[in-house]
């Protein structure tokens, strides 16, 4: 287990392998089926598969004639969760933080809190304050201005 994450990431660092994974997320496929869209040799595709297998991302049935390739959802799921915590959704995450910050202003205004350490009133929260109640608002103003 010691280096699984690095292996998974190394496996996914190649666009062809990422594409294979994306296709396998829909359904299992044989090596020939997987190789079809790519302009590379079957041997190259097998090499890619070996890397994916070593990382634990895919497995192959030993007993069947076709030996279809199967995506190991659990490993993939772990990877996803790990990445989610990072920049994959950074902007979405920080837009949720925008909303929480705007809501903090509103809460303080409601509570009539004495902001001794903060001389900005609730009105200073920015135009985002108006969408504090809609966390997934898609109509956000540019913060940059001109």
């Amino acid at each position, binding site marked *: *287990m010691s*280096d*699984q*994450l*690095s292996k*998974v*990431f*190394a*496996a*996914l*660092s190649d*666009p062809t392998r*990422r*594409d294979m*994974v*994306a296709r396998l*997320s829909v359904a299992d496929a044989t090596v020939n089926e997987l190789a079809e869209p790519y302009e590379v040799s079957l041997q190259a595709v097998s090499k890619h598969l070996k890397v994916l297998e070593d990382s634990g991302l895919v497995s192959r049935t030993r007993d069947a004639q076709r030996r279809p390739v199967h995506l190991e959802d659990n490993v993939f*799921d*772990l990877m*996803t*969760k*790990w*990445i*989610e*915590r*990072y*920049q*994959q*959704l*950074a*902007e*979405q*995450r*920080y*837009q*949720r*933080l*925008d*909303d*929480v*910050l*705007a*809501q*903090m*202003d509103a809460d303080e205004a409601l509570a009539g809190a004495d902001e001794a*350490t*903060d001389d*900005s009133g609730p009105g*200073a*929260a*920015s135009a*985002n304050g108006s969408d504090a109640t809609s*966390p*997934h608002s*898609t*109509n*956000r103003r*540019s*913060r*940059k201005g001109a």
Partner: protein
Amino acid sequence: MTTTDTTADYSTLKLDVPEGVQTVTITRDFAATPDKVFRAHIDPELFVRWCGPDSITNTIREWNATTGGNWSYVSTDDRGEYAFFGSFHEVRKNERIVQTFTFEGFPDAVNLEILTLTDLGDGRTRLQSTSVFDSLESRDGMVASGMEHGIVEGYNKLDHLLTTQ
């Protein structure tokens, strides 16, 4: 690679992925004072309100946001539970938060996150978060994985982020 999703405003988010260095740095401005941004990171009740999307429920297990303290929470979605834990190496009021980060699904991997807040005046704050990965392969693999559409929901955001560097 082009993005079809232009609804979000990326004008202040900058993602820096320096070549050959195992770090990712995110810089983002907020229309709030450093005090508020700081509180949103260390107050667990505020933190769970923004640390994950609506489809995920985050439950704090431990939360001791002081220098030398620890934290852990569990994210639950319709597929299962995912636990994260780490320590608050340093918590410096309104200025700096240094944390370690481990996902229990990959117990041997650990990240160091260094977050700084800069007061921009006018009730605005610049947040800079640098994640140090434990290998260059991990860093590169994560970034590359995030650039592909269709593998994981939400990835369509990342290439857009990368064009804003």
